[in-house]
């Protein structure tokens, strides 16, 4: 079986508090998975452990068949396009930020045309091209989320990790966003307690804790 991601007997602790124990999950290539559960139960820590931003206590994580422990994390991270709830982009002018991303050594973005962001994506996600001239801290939560989503798609990485990305969007935009990720070719792991992800039907719902 061609698995993109496997969690085996995973245990994550936060200080002395156990977030999760004995967690198992296999995700096939191209599969759409929805992790739902009460908020505040540490679902984001699963993604952070996968990306190597927190350490796990026990168990194993496999990405595309090989254990991530001891691997070059640059390579592991380059498999993922990650969007988090707050879209933690740096303060300051958005355009300058986009240009600095393009200068990153392991950049996978390809900006072309007059607009730095992809025209079709901006249209689909109703992101005004003039927003890039604003400062990121002046964008609303929903605008930042749509910017994060557009950037993530433009990265062209094989796996999407989407952590509560619809919380700041209106009803119609939530639906368009969920539809987009339901129909894409890439593997998708979404964390959300928005009912709309479940209702869409394309996502396999898995439990948490």
């Amino acid at each position, binding site marked *: 079986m061609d698995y993109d991601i496997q969690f085996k007997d995973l245990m994550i602790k936060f200080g002395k508090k156990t977030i999760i124990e004995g967690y198992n999950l296999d995700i096939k290539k191209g599969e759409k998975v929805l992790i739902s559960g009460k908020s505040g139960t540490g679902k984001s820590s699963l993604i952070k452990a996968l990306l190597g*931003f927190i*350490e796990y206590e026990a168990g194993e994580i496999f990405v595309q068949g090989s254990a991530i422990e001891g691997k070059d994390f640059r390579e592991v991270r380059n498999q993922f396009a*990650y969007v988090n709830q707050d879209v*933690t982009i*740096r303060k300051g002018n958005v355009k300058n930020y986009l240009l600095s*991303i393009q*200068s*990153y*050594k392991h950049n996978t*973005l390809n900006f072309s045309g007059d607009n730095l962001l992809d025209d079709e994506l901006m249209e689909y996600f109703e992101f005004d091209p003039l927003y890039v001239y604003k400062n990121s801290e002046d964008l609303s939560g929903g605008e930042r989320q749509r910017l994060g989503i557009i950037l993530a798609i433009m990265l062209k990485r094989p796996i999407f990790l989407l952590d509560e990305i619809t919380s700041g969007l209106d009803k119609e935009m939530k639906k368009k966003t969920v539809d987009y990720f339901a129909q894409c070719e890439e593997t998708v792991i979404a964390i959300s307690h928005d009912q709309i992800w479940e209702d869409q039907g394309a996502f396999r719902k898995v439990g948490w804790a």
Partner: protein
Amino acid sequence: MGVEPIGTLNLIFLIALVIPIFIFNRSIGITQTKKIIISIARMVIQLTIVGIYLQYIFDLNNIWLNIAYIIVMMVVATIAIGGSIPIKRTIAFLPVLISLLIPNILMLLFFNGLVIQIDQIFEAKYIITIGGMLLGNGLNGNMIGLSTFYNGLIKNEEVYHYDLMLGATKFEALKPYFKEAVLVSVNPTIASIATIGLVSLPGMMTGQILGGTIPIEAIRYQIAIMIAIFITKYFNIYFAIVLSSKNMFNTKCQMKKQFLKEEVPS
């Protein structure tokens, strides 16, 4: 030549002028009388001790003793810096010490040997005074610079992670905090370079003029020392960040939380 000496009694007269402040303080409800007395007492005691041992060191003027003195001052500065930055003292000690040691020693050699061109580079009168000025500025710069760097990173950890996800190397993702830290460290020096002489005469120049140096000579020293302070301070904070951060991240570019103090000094 030389400054008119100040008698002990005359100094006491001047200090006595502080007493009216206590009365005025009471009328506006400032309750700092005790603090002021303690501060003045500390200054008198500390400077008396410094005066005595500097006299002793200047009289001996032994090269090795002078070098040892400078190094001890750097260790003391390193300990002071360690107390006011977010990373643990033991982790910070060596990187901070080296970040002070190398730029300061190189600058002292250059300054004394090639700028002032004194025969004995390690002469106490020069190395201890110039070294002290460089170090005082470097101490201050490293304190605020390192605090800015690590506090910025702690506060923006998610942003740092997001940048790594977008394809940044560790250095690229740290760059904004690095830049900020160097700027807060050297900006006050650049500002004082730009305004020096307009409002007040700097302490070193004042001292030299009182000591009998003609102003046109004194300004050369002042220009030289300002440039030396700026360059040294810049490399102090640059090295401090580069060297301290070497050990602060694991192979996954995570900041090692166990190397941070439990309570971050503000």
